[in-house]
Each structure stands twice: as C-alpha cells, then as structure tokens.
C-alpha cells in the first residue's frame, strides 16, 4: 500500500492481550485515515451514551497516510475518544515525531480498549508489543516519565529513537482539564482526553520501529515537495513570522483588531506594553523545533534565559498567551511561559485551564466566593497565585482542588452559569467572537468545541491571506466557515498540519497527495470527504445528546457589546448566520443532517 501501512493494533488493557488487524480498504478510500478513519471506527464501535471514564470507552491513535512519508508537515497523529469534559467526541492533534514513529513502528492506528488494574505503559518497540508495569512512573510529570522510561530501556541508541506520549499527574487524578503530552513538552491539545487515558490506567505509549513506507511515484513526489518548499519560502507569514516566533506572532495583530480577549472576554482595553514579537524576543531565547518533515518549525523552545525554565520549557504559543495570559489579566510573558510549561509538565490543557481560571477570577470579582474561602488569592492579574493554583489543581492537593473541575462545573456550582465563556462545556480559544464573526460561527458549530484549530477562518478574516474579508462583516461567513471546517477535516485525515495554509492554497497540496498515494483526487473530491467526516462527527455528537441548542455562544456575546477598542459596540451575529450555515450543510432546521445529504455523501443507503 502507498502511504498507509495498512495495519492496526488493538490492545485490550483488561486482559492485557493485543492483536494486529488489517485496515478496511473501503474505509480508507472513504475516510482517508487519521481523524476521518479514527472517528469512523470509534462511531462504529462505541455507544455514544457511555460514561467517558468507563472501560467501554476507547482511545484511538491514528496517523494519516501522508505522515512519515516526508510530505511537508506530514506529522500529525489524531487522538479520538469520548471527552470527559464535554461528553461529546474529542479529537486532538498530536504534533512532533510520535505520529511518524508510529508509522515506522508498523501501525496506522492503535486502539486502546478496557481498563488495566494497575498502571501500565504500552511499549511498541521494534515489533515487540508489550505492557510494561508503570507503577514507578505513576505520579511523575510527563518530562520525568519520558526520561525515566528511556533510562530503563538500557540501550541509549534505542532510547534516542523512541518517542513517547504520556499523561501527567492531572490525567492520573482524572481531572477533566487533563490532556496528553508528547515528545516531552508538546501539549496534544484536547481537553478531556487525559482523564480517559488516566481512567484506563495507561500512563504512556512508547513507539519505535524500522518499517518502511511506500510512495506511489517517488520522483514526482520529490519534485512536488521541492516546489512546495519554495512556495512556503516565498510567503511572508510562513517563511518569516511563523518560523521566527511561532504562532505567538498573532498576538499583536489580534490585539490591533480588538480580537484578543481580556479579563474573561469582558474587555479589549488597557493598552498593553508587553505584547507582540519584540517582547517575545526579549523574554525568551528562541530556538526552533520542527515536527517531522516540517520546513517551518513553528514550535519555539525556550533556551535558558530564566532560571525557572532550566531549558525545558516551550515558548508560549498564541493559545497559551491568550488563554492563560491576557484572558486572566496577566501580561507578563515570563509568568505566562512558566504557566505554559507547568501545564505541559502536569499534563493540563492550556485552553481549558485558562478558561477555568478566568471563570474563577470573575466569580471572585463578582463576590460569589471570597479569596479567604478559596484559601488562595486568585484574581485577575495575579500571576503568582495562578501558578500556585495550577500546581495545586493538577495534584488535587490543598483547598484549591475543587477549582479543577472545568469552567462550566465551577460556574454552575456557584449558580452563575452565565459567566462561563465556553461552548459544549469547553472553554473558548482566545478570539473574541464579537470582533471576528466567522470564527464566532465556527465556535458555535464546531463538533469539538470552540477551538480555532478545526476551522482556520482567521487566515482569511484576520490575516487576509487568500481572501480579503472584514472580520466584523457577516456576509458570506457561513460558506467560509463550512469551507474551512471541511478543509481542516481533510488535512487532519491526511495527517498534515493546517498552519501552512497561511502560505499555501489547499489546491497546492493535491499533486503531493496524489503522487504519494497513487490516487487521482481533485480538490472537490477531498473536500467532500471532509464534509462526510464532519457529518459523521455531527451524528455521533447528536446521539451523545447535543442538539441545535448547543450551537450557540455564551449569552454575554449577544447582550454585552464590546466596551471599547477597534470593535467597540459590536455584538455577535451567530443567530442570524446559523440558518444559512445549516442550509449550506444540508441540515434541517434543528441542525440534523438530512437524509438526502447523507445519501449524497454515501453515509446512508438510498
């Protein structure tokens, strides 16, 4: 097979047995791999109404067909499960080298079932699949786990090529905010997944292997990649901004347009001095780290400039700066860096954690709870106590432990659900939906909660790369959102990173896909596969209890206009755009995929 390995590993933790299965070639054609295939298998095998933390829930790791082949930015491995935070489907994108190494280890997909009695580590090294007792790793941070595991392997040459994905103490304690961390410091970015892995008593997965990947037309493939690298180098955003500062370069731009939220999405005011790329340069010594086969290398590692880092942290991304930082009223980049590093070590999701604390801070400000009751002085702008609180919630120690239940649960426990800024139980990524309407519609409708990584509308709305759109305009935004959501579904399924879309058009990828897989896809064929994936995700979520009432934003964005800044006076127009979006998707008024649409997509027999 070209691109795909064609094998799947199914591990049952309850009885400790595993078996190797062949992948269904029909499903590969219809769903490509990665996110698409993972969701398809998950939806087929798992009842949407189970408890996410029960042994019946499954955890699927799936690498796309282009991962590891050398296709540019082909590195992402998707993790699919039922989220313990939202109760719906969760799909996280894992960057770094784990996805490619999983392919070299001989598997496209790993399915984890059941629940182990004691902590274990799944080790897939050189075709030997085994469950290693994990008691000595339990309670350790993600970086320590990786170090110790490699040390215990004995052979430094094998250790050098082994890649790990693990949960931190937060996942072990079944914290809903927990996620996975791979390659020592890369946050996998999907809240609610860490607790599922923790409930299965699986501490980590280690992979290494020597399998070869086949490419359909090698010489053409090499040519296409040469031209794509040249294209990326001639685009200013990918060649300069991203490779110099990573996604953090967006902070300044986003602030200028009034999109960057502050103090739990209540203001964009208070001019900030310490933002933008200059502050980043002076706060950190930036060193690029590339995911497998990435010519951009947007991950920035902080080499020692701060003693607290000791060279192990990652420079905060746009997400971390926005959610852990400005939305909690903190603009000190070094403090944000320490929080982001702590999240990585403890295995917490930065977006969910930031949203969680922003909610608590507003509760304190509204006097629903006093700092004395919480026994920690947590308030907007107080970085030191937030760092302390992150430590406390991740180990469930101290009185602050009840603060780690996720923004929605906390706000409900104080009878103020309206101050939680999130959709479907997940916190909003740092884009104010009132100032960027297309992103607002995406936040409301996204199957995985309000996260910009599943629909890159800001590429056209904020950065104006392919189209010059006004972020405050609502005209044409429904089709923009649909197109970006489908594109993102395809890219994830192929295993490609979405960020190069800031320099490349989706069409540029088609020759690379075809020469690698030996197929004859056109852009529209791939986009309809993306639509198919989006629809099965939607159907699963509707069975799990979501409906059109969940396709909305917090009331604040409809009632309270932006108080100041470039987007002053704006409110969100999601409710006006929603019917048009449903119509474009071929869904009914209640947001349910209609029979005709499903037949057209081949999801239902006619």
């Amino acid at each position, binding site marked *: 097979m070209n691109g795909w390995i064609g094998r799947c590993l199914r591990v049952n933790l309850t009885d400790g047995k595993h078996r190797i299965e062949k992948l269904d070639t029909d499903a590969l054609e219809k769903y490509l791999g990665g996110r698409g295939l993972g969701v398809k298998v998950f939806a087929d095998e798992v009842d949407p109404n189970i408890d996410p933390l029960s042994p019946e829930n499954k955890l699927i790791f799936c690498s796309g067909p282009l991962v590891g082949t050398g296709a540019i930015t082909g590195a992402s491995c998707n993790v699919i499960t039922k989220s313990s935070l939202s109760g719906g489907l969760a799909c996280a994108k894992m960057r770094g080298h784990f996805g490619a190494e999983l392919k070299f280890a001989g598997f496209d997909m790993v399915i984890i079932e059941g629940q182990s009695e004691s902590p274990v580590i799944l080790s897939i090294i050189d075709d030997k699949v085994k469950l290693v007792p994990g008691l000595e790793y339990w309670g350790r941070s993600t970086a320590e786990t990786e170090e110790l595991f490699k040390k215990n392997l004995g052979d430094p040459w094998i250790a050098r090529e082994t890649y790990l994905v693990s949960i931190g103490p937060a996942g072990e304690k079944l914290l809903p905010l927990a996620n996975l961390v791979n390659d020592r410091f890369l946050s996998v970015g999907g809240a609610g997944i860490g607790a599922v892995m923790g409930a299965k008593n699986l501490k980590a997965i280690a992979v290494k292997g020597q399998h070869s990947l*086949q490419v359909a037309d090698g010489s053409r493939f*090499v040519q296409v990649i040469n031209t794509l690298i040249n294209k990326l180098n001639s685009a200013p955003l990918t060649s300069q901004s991203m490779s110099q500062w990573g996604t953090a370069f967006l902070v300044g731009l986003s602030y200028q347009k009034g999109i960057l939220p502050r103090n739990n999405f209540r203001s964009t005011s208070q001019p900030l001095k310490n933002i933008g790329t200059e502050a980043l340069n002076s706060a950190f010594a930036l060193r690029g780290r590339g995911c497998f086969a990435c010519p951009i290398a947007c991950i920035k590692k902080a080499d020692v400039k701060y003693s607290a880092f000791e060279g192990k942290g990652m420079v905060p991304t746009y997400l971390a700066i926005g959610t852990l930082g400005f939305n909690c009223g903190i603009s000190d980049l070094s403090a944000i860096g320490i929080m982001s590093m702590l999240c990585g070590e403890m295995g917490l999701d930065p977006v969910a954690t930031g949203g969680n604390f922003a909610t608590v801070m507003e509760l304190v400000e509204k006097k629903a709870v006093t700092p004395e009751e919480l026994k920690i002085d947590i308030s907007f702008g107080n970085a030191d106590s937030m760092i302390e609180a992150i430590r406390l919630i991740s180990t469930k120690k101290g009185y602050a432990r009840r603060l780690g239940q996720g923004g929605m649960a906390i706000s409900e426990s104080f009878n103020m659900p309206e101050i939680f800024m999130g959709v479907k139980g997940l916190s909003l990524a740092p884009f104010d939906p009132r100032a960027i309407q297309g992103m607002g519609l995406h936040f409301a409708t996204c199957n995985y909660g309000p996260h910009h990584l599943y629909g890159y509308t800001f590429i056209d709305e904020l950065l104006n790369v392919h189209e010059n759109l006004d972020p405050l305009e609502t005209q044409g935004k429904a089709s923009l959102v649909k197109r970006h959501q489908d594109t993102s579904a395809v890219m994830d399924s192929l295993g490609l990173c979405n960020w190069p879309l800031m320099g490349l058009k989706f069409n540029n990828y088609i020759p690379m896909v075809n020469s690698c897989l030996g197929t004859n896809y056109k852009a529209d064929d791939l986009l309809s596969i993306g639509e198919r994936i989006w629809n099965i995700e939607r159907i699963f979520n509707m069975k799990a209890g979501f409906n059109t009432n969940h396709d909305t934003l917090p009331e604040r964005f409809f009632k309270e206009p932006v108080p100041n800044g470039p987007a002053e006076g704006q409110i969100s127009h999601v409710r006006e755009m929603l019917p048009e979006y449903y119509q474009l998707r071929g869904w009914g008024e209640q947001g349910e995929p209609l029979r005709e649409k499903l037949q057209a997509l081949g999801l239902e027999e006619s």
Partner: protein
Amino acid sequence: MPRIKIDHAKCTGCRHCEAACSLNHVVNTVNPRRSRIRVMRDGNRYYPVIAGPFVDAACTSKQFIVIGDQTYDMCAFCRASCPQKPYFIEAETGIPLKCDFCGIPPSPSCVRWCNTGALELVED
C-alpha cells in the same frame, strides 16, 4: 571539493533530510533507518550526522565532551558506522551505508530539503 557544512545551531530536528535521503536511495521508499544522514539528539540539541567511512571494529577510545554543565556522548556525533552503534547499517543486508552526494546537482537531496540552513553545500 564540495562538502556539506553542518550548523547544528540551526537544526530544528525535523528529520526531513532523513526522508529525502531514503527516498533518493531506495525506490519509492521512505525509512529513516535506511538513510545516510541521521539527526542525533543529545540533551536539548540536535546534531545531523552524515555517514562516513566505516570500520569493522569498535574503537577503543570512547570519549565524552563536556560543554558547560552538560556531558555529551562523542559516539553520537561520530560519522563511522562501527559495531558499537546500530546506525548507518542497512538492517536487512548488513551493508554499511555511506553518503554519496545523491540527488540533482549541485545540491544533494538532504541539503535541498533542509529549509533552515543547517545543511549547506560549500566549496573548498
């Protein structure tokens, strides 16, 4: 004589060079373990190492270098495919590998795909 200059400070550890090398040497196949350039990792840094002459005995002088407070294993930066380490040896046949400046001249395939400038072709 053209040489490939390696600047480890610019290396991001993306291993695109490994993919390029194996695609150029084994028809339509990608496998970093069959590549003649490997990116070694020691501590926080990445070091691309290009396969050089091979020896049929393990060398007797294992060395460590100390830079600052870190100790580095010298074997990781050594180009030789010696019995001490499993690198630069074709797993199936046991034949040692050696860089041959493959690809379309002037740039070898790994240099062409290295986007950060860690690998560079220089003339002496």
